[in-house]
């Protein structure tokens, strides 16, 4: 009876420790402000964090079990990411476009890192997204402004060129007339 009670106590303590560990792991996973999901070699989402929920509008359980390509505008990019992970084990700053539950498109910078088993086989990967939509919007606006200014500048240059040609033309004409005047003066003498 004594042994049984102590075993029961050990089991209860282990059970409590597991609870604490599970809560810790869950809190850490949910804490990450970066939208992250865990994908298996079959391109199926196994888990996602709260940040991804907020970013894409899906609940975690709506994404779990779905193919990861539902998140991407260009479905081929998923295959490319997986191939890159096999070659390089990780990816940083790959640009892409994702699509939210409501159909909104967002430009993202993608980071991914492979998960390996003890033999070094890739058994899945973590996928993280950084929203660069605003940055890309600003970049596009800046490029448009630069293009506009360049066009304006080009027009001004063309106008100046015209003026220069006209001015130079007039100067040459005046030189010609002066030469003609001297010639005529000499003739008079």
């Amino acid at each position, binding site marked *: 009876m004594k042994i049984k009670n102590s075993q029961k106590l050990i089991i209860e303590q282990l059970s409590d420790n597991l609870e604490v560990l599970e809560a810790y792991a869950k809190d850490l996973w949910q804490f990450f402000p970066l939208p992250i999901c865990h994908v298996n070699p079959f391109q*199926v989402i196994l888990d996602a964090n709260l940040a991804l929920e907020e970013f894409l509008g899906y609940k975690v359980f709506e994404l779990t079990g779905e193919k990861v390509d539902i998140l991407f505008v260009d479905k081929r990019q998923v295959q490319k990411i997986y191939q890159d992970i096999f070659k390089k084990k990780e990816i940083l700053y790959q640009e892409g476009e994702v699509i939210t539950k409501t159909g909104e498109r967002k430009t993202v910078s993608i980071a991914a890192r492979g998960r390996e088993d003890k033999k070094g086989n890739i058994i899945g990967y973590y996928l993280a997204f950084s929203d660069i939509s605003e940055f890309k919007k600003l970049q596009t606006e800046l490029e448009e402004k630069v293009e506009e200014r360049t066009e304006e500048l080009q027009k001004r240059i063309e106008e100046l060129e015209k003026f220069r040609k006209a001015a130079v033309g007039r100067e040459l004409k005046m030189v010609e007339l002066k030469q003609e005047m001297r010639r005529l003066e000499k003739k008079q003498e």
Partner: protein
Amino acid sequence: MAKISKEEIEEIKQVEGEVMGVSLKEDLQFIQEKEGEEGLKKVEDEMGKLGYPLKFEEIKNFQWYPWYLNLLFLVVAKNIFQWDDETFRESGRFSAKVSIIAKIMVKYFISIRRCFEEAGNFWRKYYTVGELKTEEFNKKERFAVLVLSGVVGHPVFCRILDGYIWQVVAYVAPKEKLKVQEIECVFRGSKIHKFKVTW
């Protein structure tokens, strides 16, 4: 409201074995998701009235609970919300999506064969009774047969298991043609529960 006869309650109480707290939490979480906080409260209140108080927040994930408790609140939910078989399958699929045990186990499923090889291990993480094993696995013909022996359970549980198995296999197999069918059942005269999975 739920009208469970005393006879049915007694029958459910005969179910032996214990289940990990996570299982109760997964099922209650489904009720919360499907029927809202009010729905969850209705089930909790009804369980209290029946003499088996149960609070979602107080359940510990890694503690063992009598399996009949899990089955009882599922039957209560069935009666309150008039759930059909498909809803219980949905509950099974939901559990396999949110389960901490499933999240840990499926991380290592790198093939469909491995998935079926781990069936027994999976079962033992949840229950102290019964045994689940893969009786047959045919990759070429794309089917497998799972046998659950040593347990009775409840018909609602059979549907939940349908859904759970479907979702776990869906992590590693294309789901467009994935089907799970219980081809033998203790409640239809057999001594075992047998599930055929095709993909």
